[in-house]
């Protein structure tokens, strides 16, 4: 619910933002997030020797 008590406005089906752009962006972001986390983990565990 919004602050005024109305349910938030839902995006219509076929919306470019919700149906095309954001899904791709989220997948790419998640892949980058996994990559950076794994590199940080490898550094932390001393697997990269640095």
């Amino acid at each position, binding site marked *: 619910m919004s602050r005024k008590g109305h349910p938030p406005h839902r995006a219509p089906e076929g919306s470019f933002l919700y149906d095309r752009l954001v899904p791709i962006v989220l997948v790419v972001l998640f892949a980058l997030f996994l990559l*950076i986390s794994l590199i*940080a983990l490898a550094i932390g565990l001393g697997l990269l020797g640095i």
Partner: protein
Amino acid sequence: MQIDRWLPFASMLVTAIFAAAVLRRYVRRRRPYLLFWGLGLVFYGLGAFAEFYSTLAWSPLVFRLWYIGGALLTAAWLGQGTVFLLVRRGRIAFYLMVLLLIGSALAVIVMFNTPLNAGAFSPDRPLSVQYKTDREAGIVGILPEGALVRKLTPIFNLYGTVALVGGAIYSSWIFWRKRILPNRMIGNILIAVGALSPAFGGTLSRLGMPEFLYISELLGAVLMFIGFLQATAVPEAAPSPRPSRA
């Protein structure tokens, strides 16, 4: 080089304004996540200030502040803010905060007890290029080889990145799935991209490519600030269902 002076200066200005906006919101709303985001941004700005100052002169205190603020604590405390925002079950966020507080205090003690090699410092090169020692590669840096404080960095940054970036991606995914509040969805995407930027810059620096660190920090600060403004903006009111008087 001039650009290595002005990039951190710009990062410092952006993070100062950003931190003021977040802490002002905390004063009004008293939500703990805003306080910890504000604290993380103060560390961010401190790191940027130290980078700027180090293009002018050497100071062991400023170098230590750079490592503490820039490399150790920024991501972790920003991430702690997100933990307070998203983890509402029991007192998990509070216990994680206590652990982080103890860890941060220990890291600060370790940093202030680490001997520094001032002879390796030059104001003409960014700190990210000259802080580490690698005897095999013939590099003598400001921090001694195998310094304990460098071993602590990935732990703090992993926690911070997982919480901050993971939390922002999770939030945008929730808004995307429900198909609501596009401003918050886009704001969280920008926060995730902004937080990934210095994470990549720091990792590349660690992997021997330090030249991207300062630009990644500025980009990260700008994107996170825009994301924060976007996510906290009041959406435009929906058209009134009442018929017009005309």
